[in-house]
């Protein structure tokens, strides 16, 4: 067993007990990256030198007997949508090639203060638009469980890196499922916090009213550690909430006999993979055996989530991505005769197809004469969807659904038809529209040895309860926890 295979809580304990050094941890991490990342392709940038420097700093603290911050020595991979000062940040897009932020995202500042060691930036669908990481301008990431399959997306690089033990913890972002779906497809724990729980300052916006940053981890305890560090009000983000951050680590260990669980019937209809359905049913039985009460519940407006999402998210994206015009930073096309031509050429060459599709959709939705019929209507639907959840939460503490209708799919399987690809997020999108928290964790494996994820949805700012439910499930799950076998030989053969 190498140190990169451990969890954050194991590593921090070992460092505290002086059984290992932070430098040893980072050494093992980069060994693994060097060994497997040419297959996984989870990383776009590695910050090796800075990571070792940071690790050395922590080891000095240990030697001096200084008090250690909570994540001291924990390697963390950062989705390439978060600004890290001095490190190229591209959002998986050609248009941001070469862009080096002069500032840190708030979560990065907080993680650094907490002793976490940033090891690199992870691959993603361009501007977080996608569910497979195939939309990256820098090539896809491969699922460690099956290298012919996608890791999910858009935080596919982060999820794959954690699953392949190339990092201990990773940060992702989630606008319509981009943390939970890849966590599910890679068998990891991924949490999308309540909108406003984690500062978005430094998160390069896709859809500002939906985006949230959250952790992807190997287990629920690690999730609590990361959440404790990154959560809480931030003066740089007006939409961050001034609500105290509870001690998730302690409260998650309490039981769940008191929990009333609702199971939305609308999430178990056509399109759902039978193996996924069976795994979820099994999981629900386990919850029942732990004392929770389970009932079916209806969220009647569920079917409108996808269309509402693809109007609101794209409308905001069309505005958020307008700044990539080749003027101030990033990519600028050559050979233009005037300003308008420079804009057109830069954006035509700099953006990928899916990004262009969404910019056009969003531009249309906001256009004069269409605004009321599309954007405004979608906002009204969003309110109805939120009210569905409000109503359900009058009766239930948490809701449980699958995270994704299917396990990991093959590369190119859904690229030809965007609408099929959009359905990958059908269970996660309503949660973003409602602004509420949800966690995805592994609940079993398919016959093909692919992870299947379970989604636990909570009340606004009640991450505590979904984390508690997830921890109880994780501790009592009788499906043996596996690690993917990354087989370099097999893959090389095929290549």
């Amino acid at each position, binding site marked *: 067993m190498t140190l990169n295979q451990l969890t954050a809580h194991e590593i921090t304990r070992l460092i505290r007990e002086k059984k290992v050094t932070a430098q040893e941890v980072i050494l093992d991490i980069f060994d693994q990256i060097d060994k497997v990342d040419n297959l996984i392709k989870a990383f776009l940038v590695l910050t090796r030198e800075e990571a070792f420097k940071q690790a050395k700093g922590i080891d000095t603290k240990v030697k001096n007997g200084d008090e250690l911050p909570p994540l001291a020595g924990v390697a963390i991979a950062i989705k390439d949508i978060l600004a890290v000062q001095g490190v190229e940040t591209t959002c998986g897009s050609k248009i941001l090639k070469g862009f080096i932020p002069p*500032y840190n995202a708030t979560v990065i500042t907080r993680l650094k203060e907490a002793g976490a060691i940033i090891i690199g930036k992870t691959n993603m669908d361009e501007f977080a638009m996608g569910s497979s990481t195939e939309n990256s301008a820098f090539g896809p990431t491969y699922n460690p469980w099956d290298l012919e399959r996608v890791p999910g997306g858009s935080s596919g690089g982060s999820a794959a890196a954690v699953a392949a033990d190339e990092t201990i913890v990773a940060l992702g972002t989630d606008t319509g499922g981009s943390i939970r779906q890849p966590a599910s497809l890679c068998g990891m724990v991924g949490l999308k916090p309540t909108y406003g729980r984690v500062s978005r300052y430094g998160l390069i916006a896709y859809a*500002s009213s939906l985006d949230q940053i959250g952790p992807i981890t190997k287990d629920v305890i690690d999730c609590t550690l990361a959440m404790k560090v990154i959560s809480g009000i931030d003066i*740089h*983000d*007006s939409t961050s909430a001034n609500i105290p951050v509870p001690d998730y680590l302690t409260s998650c260990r309490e039981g769940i006999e008191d929990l009333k669980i609702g199971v939305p019937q609308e999430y178990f209809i056509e399109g759902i993979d039978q193996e996924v359905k069976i795994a979820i049913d099994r999981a629900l039985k386990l919850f029942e055996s732990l004392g929770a009460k389970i009932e079916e519940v209806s969220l009647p407006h569920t079917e409108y989530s996808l269309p509402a999402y693809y109007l609101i998210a794209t409308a905001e994206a*069309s*505005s958020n991505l307008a700044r990539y*015009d080749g003027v101030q930073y990033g990519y600028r096309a050559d050979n233009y005769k005037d300003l308008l031509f420079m804009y057109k050429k830069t954006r035509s060459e700099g953006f990928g197809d899916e990004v262009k599709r969404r910019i056009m959709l969003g*531009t249309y939705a906001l256009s004069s004469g269409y605004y009321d019929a599309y954007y405004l209507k979608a906002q009204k639907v969003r309110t109805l969807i939120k009210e569905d959840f409000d109503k359900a939460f009058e009766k239930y503490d948490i809701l449980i659904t699958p995270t994704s209708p299917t396990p990991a799919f093959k590369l190119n399987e859904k690229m030809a038809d965007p609408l099929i690809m959009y359905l990958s997020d059908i269970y996660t999108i309503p949660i973003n529209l409602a602004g509420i928290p949800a966690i995805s964790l592994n609940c079993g494996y398919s016959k093909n040895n692919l992870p299947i994820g379970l989604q636990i949805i909570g009340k606004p700012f009640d991450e505590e309860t979904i984390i508690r439910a997830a921890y109880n499930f994780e501790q009592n799950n009788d499906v043996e926890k596996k690690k993917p076998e990354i087989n370099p030989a097999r893959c090389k053969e095929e290549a």
Partner: protein
Amino acid sequence: MKEEVVIGLEVHIQLMTKAKMFCHCSTDYIGKEPNTNTCPVCLGLPGSLPVLNKKVLEFAVRTALALNCKINQISRFHRKNYFYPDLPKAYQISQYDLPLGVGGYMEISLPESGEKRRIGITRVHIEEDAGKLVHEGDIASSAYSLVDYNRCGIPLAEIVTEPDFRSPEEARIFLVKLRSIVQHLGVCDGNMEEGSLRCDANVSVRPAKSKSLGTKAEVKNMNSFRAVKKALQFEVDRQKKLLSEGEKVIQETRHWDESKNITVSMRSKEEAHDYRYFPEPDLLPLQVDLKMIEEIRRNLPELPEVRKERFTKDYQIPEYDAEILTSSKVLGDYYEKACSLYNNTKILSNWIMGELMRYLNEEKIEIEDSPISSENLVGLLILIDEGVISGKMAKIVFEKMFKTGKKASQIVKESEVIQITDKNELIEIVDRVISENPKSIEDFNQGKEKALNYLVGQVMRYTKGKAKPDFVFEAIKQRIKR
């Protein structure tokens, strides 16, 4: 056909908060090295987020209240989307359907008719300023554009009037008063040349007594009060001519070309932007509670209208004088300071509105930069009162004071323009003039009082104006009678 002119204004004022609207950068951007007064937020760098500077809200509420607006207790920000290199986010954070203030008015008085007019204020909202493009030479000949983002994120209040103006002059009068109001409020320095107060106008012409509006043109780029009047007059004439020739006015945006004294078409309605406004998701709705509104209202400073009335009462000057003296905050302050040092307030008003304003206008100097302080002006008037210099000489001294910034007493001392008050010295000259002008003496003796004036003039000539005229007059009279 008798036509009626219809004009409405859109005025932008830069709010003089210390920090920019959504970040901590300074608002003191003029003259700074390009792109040094910036940060990730005002540069619109990917991932940055705006956080509203509360002072901006306070300044805007102050402005809206002074313009008699109703304050919307909940308003919100919208994004106005358009591409331009000086707009780093490619959208401007502005307000749209729920502005901060609505339904206000301002009263203006028209000096020629003495008529008072109430100009409706449609709305007052807040938004961020953009950067500036810089060109080598001018925009047409330069091979490239450079962008200076120092101005990005400077807070602006936009004040939109109803189409209530019936002439370019009315619009100009409104603008002068508006500037004075925002100066008195301490929210804006009102400097049009530097762009801290900017004005666009919607101009149209319609048949007199018609209720519906004619097709309007929007006129931009007017950088002084004078330019506003000239540009609007040009536009009114242009439209009247079109209509009289049976042609149509096209709805378009027109640019005032100061060097050619014409407006030129920038873009037509068809080319107009679709700004795709939508609520800004990065900012919460703006909340202004009643307590805050009342507190700001209670603490509003004295506004020009009230100050004007106080001037007519306290300083006993005509309304016309008071109107001019309160047309700028600093001018009013200048006058009041002088009045605290000198009793004859009307004389002060005459000197300020006459000599001082004339020189300031000629030299294009703002009153705040006047080389003659109110103390020094009073110093000059005291020299007159003491008989040290004549009124006529004072004007020469004034000019020297204006050019050198020196005190009156110093100039008088240096150039020896002290009046001759030594009677003996004067008598000699008087005698000489009398002996040289027997004809005048004869005339006087025959009852022509005016002949004396000629003699006084002669004495003044010999003394190079240093003699005190009434003193000379008395002296000549005495000598002749003897």
